[in-house]
Structure formats: C-alpha cells, structure tokens
C-alpha cells in the first residue's frame, strides 16, 4: 500500500450538505500540490446530472483542476479510462448503491485502475458507498434493506455509514462482526470522515458538532463493542452555492481563501503525523 491517504465519510460533502463544504475543502487540502487534479466519480448514483453540476460548481471555484468520470457517458470521454484515472491527485467517489458501484467498476475495469492509481500516490476519498468500497466490507442497502457486502479490500476492516441517521446499519454491522461475516472496523455518522494513511486511522474530522465515529470490535467473549473515537471539528466554511454569476464569483473568492487556510492546517497535521510515523519506524 502506498502512503497516499484514503478519506472515508459516513456522509457529507457537497452531495449531501451543499453550502457547507468543510469536508470537501479538507479533501482538497490532502493533496500536497497547489492545484490538485480532482476526479469525481458519481457512479454509485448512476451519474446524476445534479451531482455533476454541484461538483463542477464547487470545485470549479476552488484552486484545483476538477474532472468528472461518468461510466454511463463514456462516449463523451476523449482520452482512455486508464489515462484519466491514472493522472489524478485526488479521486472523490460519491454515494449511492455500493452493489452497483462495484459491479460497474468491475464491468469497466475501473476497480483495478483505482487501486493502481492509489499505489502511485493518488488520494482516495468518498462518502457512503464511495467510502465503504475501499474496505474489506461494509453494510449496503443496495437491494432495499441493509446487509453486509464485500468491498475492494484496500483498507483492512469493515466500515458502516450513516451510523446515527440509520441505526439499522450499525445493528447489521455488529451482528455481522459477531458472526464473523465482517471483520472489526468502524462506523461514522453523516458529516464525519475518517482519514487513513498506510492503512491506519490517522484522525477523524467532522463538519458538524455532533457528528461522531466509533471503533467496532468483537471481544473475546463474543460480544461486539462500539467505542467513540475522538473527532476534530473542522472550521466551518460558509459559501452559498448560488446560481447567480456575481454571487458565485464572490463565493469563490471567499472559498479560496478559506480553503488555503484549511490546506495549511491539514498539511501541518499531516506533516506531524508523517514525522511521528517516521520516528516510530526508526524506533521500531
């Protein structure tokens, strides 16, 4: 596994909380370059137009090079899939049906490309289905009611989303872990995301005060426990995503400044984390 971060949200970001882009800004800040190339994959929702528009509007106003990959409109793609996927700094995966997401990625050969991109250093991020997909397994409602589902296995463990919003998912995760169907893992509420580096949890962040995340583990006596993990509340970024051109310009200017601020903060955290890992390795 490369050292590139993987950021997994229980929910949140521009598709769920437009106008409150703190988590999106955090993702952008993970890239160690000035103008990261950011590729959005709305696959799990069937590439709906409104997600594509929201992404383009928000990231189009930020210091980055946004692109969208629509597997339903590959006829509009000028380069090969491989060229596009392997040339990104950040790949951001939307929510929706995890079953469909994985089936579509496999049908188009995208899953292997994404893993290869990550090996080469591309940051992966996503929410809901787009977050669970990186783990060994998750809990999906793709067929109606929540059930365990296998993921790509890039990250060890299981991940369940919308924890507080849809408690049934957590119940399914716990019983699947108890039964050995899913490995130990985490769950996260909407508006909370977990950052993994080298397969290890680095930190949890949230765009709202009450959003949390938990470690979910099977104990020697067979019971499954949930332990709250510390969550850092991100500074709110206020930008009104509006249709008017003038307001959008104003919003863009505001957002860029805030993103830079956020970028600096995140880089400080990353630098600290990376150097502490280096120290630990040297010590080990």
């Amino acid at each position: 596994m490369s050292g590139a971060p993987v950021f997994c949200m229980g929910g949140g970001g521009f598709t769920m909380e437009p106008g409150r882009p703190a988590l999106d800004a955090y993702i952008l800040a993970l890239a160690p370059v000035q103008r990261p190339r950011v590729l959005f994959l709305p696959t799990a929702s069937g590439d709906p137009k409104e997600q594509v528009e929201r992404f383009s509007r928000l990231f189009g106003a930020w210091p980055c090079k946004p692109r969208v990959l629509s597997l339903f409109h590959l006829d509009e793609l000028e380069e090969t899939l491989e060229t596009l996927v392997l040339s990104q700094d950040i790949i951001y995966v939307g929510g929706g049906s995890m079953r469909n997401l994985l089936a579509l990625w496999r049908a188009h050969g995208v899953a292997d490309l994404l893993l290869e991109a990550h090996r080469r250093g591309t940051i992966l991020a996503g929410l809901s289905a787009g977050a669970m997909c990186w783990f060994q397994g998750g809990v999906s409602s793709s067929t109606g009611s929540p059930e365990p589902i296998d993921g790509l296995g890039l990250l060890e463990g299981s991940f369940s989303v919308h924890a507080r919003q849809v408690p049934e998912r957590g119940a399914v995760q716990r019983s699947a872990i108890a039964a050995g169907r899913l490995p130990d893992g985490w769950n996260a509420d909407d508006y909370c995301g977990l950052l993994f580096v080298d397969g290890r949890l680095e930190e949890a962040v949230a765009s709202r005060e009450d959003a949390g995340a938990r470690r979910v583990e099977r104990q020697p006596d067979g019971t499954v426990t949930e332990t709250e993990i510390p969550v850092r509340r991100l500074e709110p970024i206020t930008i009104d995503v509006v249709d008017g051109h003038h307001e959008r310009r104003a919003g863009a200017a505001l957002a860029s400044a805030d993103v830079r601020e956020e970028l600096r903060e995140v880089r400080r955290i990353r630098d600290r984390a990376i150097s502490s890992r280096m120290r630990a390795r040297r010590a080990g």
Partner: protein
Amino acid sequence: MEPRNPLMDDFVLELSGADQPRICFLPTASGDADHYVVRFYRRFGAGRTDPSHVSLFRRDRSAGAVEGNLEEHLLSQDVIYVGGGSLLSLLGTWRAHGLDRTLRRAWEQGVVLCGLSAGSLCWFADAVTAFHGPSERVTGLGLLPYSNCVHYDGEPERRRSFRSMVGDGLRPGFGVEDGAALCFEGTTLKEVVTSKPAASAYEVAVDPDGEVVERRLAARYLGDSGDGEPAAPEGRASLQAVAEAPAEAGRASDPVAGSGIAGGGGIVGPGPSAAGPEVETAVAA
C-alpha cells in the same frame, strides 16, 4: 421511445395482446436517469397501460419505483421495456442484482421483451458497441444466438467493424438502423418493422466461400396500413431492438423455442405476419 413518433411503442403494446398491458421500464443503461423515466410515463401513461419502472440505483427509496421483490414484479408483466445507454453498465448492474436470470425467466414465461440501443444489444449472444472509442465485442445475455449491431446507419466505421468482425469469426447476426426493429418469436426472426419508411435492417453472415455477405431484410413500415408510399420521415429514430414475448400459448416445453424475443432495432410480437424475412438485396462486403 422516439420523440414525436409512437409507432414502435404502439407496436410493442400490440404484441402483448393485452387491453391494458402491464409494462415495466428498465432505465438501467442510463443510470436510471430521471428525464428518461418521465418520458416513459408520458408515453405509456394516461390509462393506456399499467406502467411501472425499476430503479436499481434507488432500491432503498421509493421514488415511485418498484420496491420489494423485483423478480415477482417482472414476471407478472406483459412487456418489459429496456432503455438505451451504456451496454457494459447495463449488463454489469443487472448481473449484480440477478436480473440477468430474472429476465431469462420472464422470456421463457412469455413476457414480451423489448428495448432500444443497449436495450436491444443486451438480448443477443454478442453485441458490437462503439459507445466509447473503437468498436468492441460485448457478451450479452444470450437469449438470441446471434450478434447484433445497432445505429447501423451511424458512423460508416461501425458498419465496417461489424462486417469485419463477422468475417473474423463473430457469430452471424444483424445490423439494425435507427427506426428499424427486429421482432423475434423464440429465437426465430418473425419480421422487421420500421417507424421510418427508409429504415432498414441487415443480416450479416459469411457465405460458403468465406465472404462476408450483408443482406437487407424485407421490412414493414408501421406507419402505413397498406402498401402506399410512406409518410415523410420524422427525424432520427432511435428504437433499436425489441424482444418479443412468447407465442400466444406462451409456455412451451422448450422455453427458448417457445418464447419470442425481438432484438436489433425493433420489436417482437406474436404477430401473424410473414413466416420470415425475405432477402431483398445482397451486398458483399
């Protein structure tokens, strides 16, 4: 669903033989695009049919789509109508939800299957698609043991590719232009119908000398009751394939032979029409 041209859709409903057919739309190949679903209800609503649709991307939310047991719902339909879009995405998503097996069962039980573009290609053993970049061969559901290439009147490259693939060993099959449809009963082609007077379908095969032969198939224009000159074309039509439902009796002991499917550019029906298409012209590739 050609805008402003209901001929193909009317034909599909006729094939069902029902007064108010239960018709279910599968917009999977478009990612369940809302505008497509709306178009379906506009065309098939208004009391003519008992319409429904399945969204494989939103099975946890109603949004008006069928919930619960999809198989039961699909098997109770008179017509299953598959929309166009990305063939690879369509097949991948269907297989993930087991709809490949359900649709075969529906066909065996006599449900009329129809669709256009990707929704036509999917029924065949082999599909030739040029959705992204050069033409490529995709393995379909295989209800119809032929190859299929749609939008045959599109780029000349597509036609050339299909013929050369058949020359290189791809199983024989059909090239279908926009506005034309193949109507199968079981695996037998019953007729070619068109919603545009000039639209055609072709059979592409290899002759005993190894030459690729393309024959234009006789077609029936749906806009004329008689044999008069057809009305002016109504723009680019896009209905590509229709699979038809089973013969009247429906359940045959041999399910494949007993049911009908239309693929290619059209519809299939249990129609009383000619036994088979006639060869009008032969073109060596």
